[in-house]
């Protein structure tokens, strides 16, 4: 007799985070010399990628605006910030860290609206690490002579950041620069300027001297003008490898010091003795965290042949539980793709994956009608030659390859021009250390993935860029005695 089927599936009620905490103005100017000013250029719109609703008009900085910002930063450097004792600079940074904590929920909601990422992540990952980053580097400001890099700042830093972790990337750039006594001109990404502009307000609340932090908004041309400005001593960029190479060319022959944190195509390697359920959680976190908009995403799963079917079955089962939708819903796992342009790129590469013969699978999931969405996707039977195994997709798309021996895993993992991160899953300690030695990547996560901390240096080998952000090593990028490594 067949048992009576009882449904045990729980339905989730909507659990939206309130938007009431944020106050988005209809338009924003540039933050130069401690004040919001109108730009000379045109303006552009920033939208919510989950609804396509226009959030605000943003000033686009032209060359003259960039020049004003650099001048303000230079003045602040020579007259105030470069001369201030480290112990006093530290207190401003501690203030900023505290205000970020106080206004943490507001920042989390605003970041989620402007970027499309789930509130769960902005609230529990992005914003807490932003505050921690300022806290960490605040403490360095009066201890630089113990860092091994001296205590002499470079001057004015021009910083250009991406849209995937807008405020976190701002913190990675501004906190060490200021701690070392430099002043900054920072350009947030075109599609995600709002939290950087709210950060400008936080600088005002902290009474940070005018010109120490300048925020200029705009697109590629604005960034180019900033990087190329002759009075910039330091260029820090996080973004695509193509733009990184263009910057490396642009600064050739100058005395500018450069840090580049670029693309990746990380291998996440699962051995047959790994704790498979934990490994599956790591795979999911590796590629679906932040919609896969992560330069260090574990976008290539290398799984040992003997457990490949088992891992894949467990992975698909787990993927079917991922909730895609409203970024402000506290139960959402995967939010919106950041822009129409990025969505088009993910679609294009995924279609190429299918056309080149890889097997495509996504769990059944209903995507919202408006906004930019892409379901979590896995490709099986992928080979090294496939474009989806070689190119950074920067979306929730995982390519699965298999291997038999540790040597084959190393060979495949390193067979890429990138070298940002890698993952290893195995129960055997000696194998972890062997793999960690052999993998040509700046960060190796063993039996974990996508972990970040202000004390831990981050950055790549090969075409993933140079220089490190975070930790003691991160100071090297902003001091005269430091060499990028």
């Amino acid at each position, binding site marked *: 007799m067949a048992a009576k089927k009882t449904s045990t599936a729980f339905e989730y009620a909507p659990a939206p985070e309130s938007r009431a905490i944020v106050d988005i103005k209809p338009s924003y100017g540039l933050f130069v010399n401690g004040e919001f000013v109108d730009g000379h250029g045109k303006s552009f719109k920033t939208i919510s990628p989950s609804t396509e609703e226009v959030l605000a008009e943003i000033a686009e900085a032209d060359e003259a605006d960039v020049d004003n910002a650099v001048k303000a930063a230079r003045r602040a450097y020579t007259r105030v910030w470069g001369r201030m004792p480290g112990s006093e600079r530290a207190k401003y940074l501690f203030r900023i860290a505290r205000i970020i904590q106080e206004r943490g929920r507001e920042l989390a909601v605003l970041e989620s609206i402007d970027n499309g990422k789930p509130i769960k992540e902005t609230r529990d990952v992005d914003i807490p690490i932003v505050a*921690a980053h300022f806290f960490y580097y605040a403490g360095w400001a009066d201890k630089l002579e113990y860092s*091994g890099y001296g205590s002499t700042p470079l001057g004015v830093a021009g910083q250009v950041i991406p849209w995937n972790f807008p405020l976190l990337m701002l913190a990675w750039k501004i906190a060490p620069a200021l701690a070392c006594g430099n002043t900054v001109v920072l350009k947030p990404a075109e599609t995600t300027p709002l939290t950087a502009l709210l950060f400008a307000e936080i600088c005002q609340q902290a009474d940070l001297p005018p010109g120490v932090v300048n925020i200029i908004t705009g697109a590629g041309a604005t960034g180019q003008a900033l990087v190329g400005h002759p009075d910039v001593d330091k260029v820090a960029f996080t973004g695509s*490898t193509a733009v*990184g*190479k*263009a910057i*490396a*060319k642009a600064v*050739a*022959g100058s*005395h500018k010091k450069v840090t*580049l944190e*670029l693309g990746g195509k990380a291998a996440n390697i699962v051995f047959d003795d790994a704790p498979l359920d934990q490994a599956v959680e790591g795979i999911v976190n590796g590629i679906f965290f932040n919609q896969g908009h992560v330069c260090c995403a574990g976008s290539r799963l290398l799984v040992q042949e003997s457990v490949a079917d088992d891992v894949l079955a467990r992975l698909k089962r787990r993927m079917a539980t991922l909730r895609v939708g409203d970024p402000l819903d506290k139960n959402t796992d995967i939010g919106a793709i950041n822009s129409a342009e990025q969505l088009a790129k993910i679609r294009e590469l995924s279609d190429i994956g299918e056309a080149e013969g890889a097997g495509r699978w996504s769990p059944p999931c209903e995507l919202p009608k408006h906004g930019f969405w892409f379901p979590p996707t896995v490709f099986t039977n992928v080979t090294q030659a496939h474009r989806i195994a070689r190119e950074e997709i920067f979306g929730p798309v995982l390519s699965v390859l298999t291997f038999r021996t540790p040597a084959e895993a190393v060979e495949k993992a390193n067979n890429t*021009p990138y070298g940002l991160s890698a993952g290893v899953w195995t129960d055997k300690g000696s194998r*972890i250390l062997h793999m*960690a030695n052999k993998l040509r*990547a*700046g*960060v*190796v*996560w*063993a*039996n*974990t993935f996508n*972990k970040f*901390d202000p*004390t*831990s*240096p*981050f*950055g790549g*080998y*090969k*075409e993933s*860029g*140079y220089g*490190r952000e975070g*930790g*003691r*090593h991160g100071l090297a990028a902003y001091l005269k005695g430091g*060499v*990028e*490594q």
Partner: protein
Amino acid sequence: MSPTARVDVRKTYKLYVGGQFPRSESGHSYVVDDARGKFVANAALASRKDARDAVQAARAAFGGWSGKTAYNRSQILYRVAEVMEDRRPQFVEALRQSEGLTPTQAGKALDTSIDRLVWYAGWADKITQVTGNANPVAGPFFNISTPEPTGVVAVVAPQQSSLLGLISVVAPVVVTGNTAIVLASPERPLPAVTFSEVLATSDMPGGVVNILTGKLSNTAPTLAAHMDVNGLDLTGYAGDAEQSRLLEEAAADNLKRVLRAPDTEPDWSLDPGLERMTTFLETKTVWHPIGV
């Protein structure tokens, strides 16, 4: 000259690639004069193909060299210093020829060169401790950052200081585990060739240091643009801002780590510092959870 006087046996000055001493594959050579303009030798004129072959040799040697223990690399560099000391008269002669030094000056330059090599030899098993550290992350994780060699590095050696300058740019690159293609001073290549003969007889595996003589315009652009070269030291272009800019631009195509050319050739008698090592190191950070 008396018909019974002994005729000396002169040396052929060749390239040093992959532990071998080939002539240039191009068959080309060029005249090297001494400091007074007197003919000394026809040295090999390395071609673009020689540069590519050298990259291949350096890449092949990288795994073995970087995989050796630091203690072992340290001993090998020290052994190079030993063999140099053993060949003092030969180096003194080479320095007198190439730089026009007096015997006393040449001896002093040689002393400093050998001492510099010994200094760098000692760094092999210390640089990790000085540039790496544990990171106290806010969570139950073991987390450590250590330096690793960048890979294959092309080094344009100084133009003036043909031995001390050469040692001062080569030793810091290879002591940490990188392998190198070295472009010797075109005007003063002979001490570099003699140095390659020391390398060949001092336990240094073939391919770790490859030395090319000839015109920089033949080889430097090839190496700067080569996609399997990871680092570029432009010290030999000191004072040539235009050329070094062009080479740095070419190096951007695969984001080589570049040590820019200084305005003038450095004073090689000064304390070298760490920059020549750290420029060609990568920091690797490894995480692992802590639990029972």
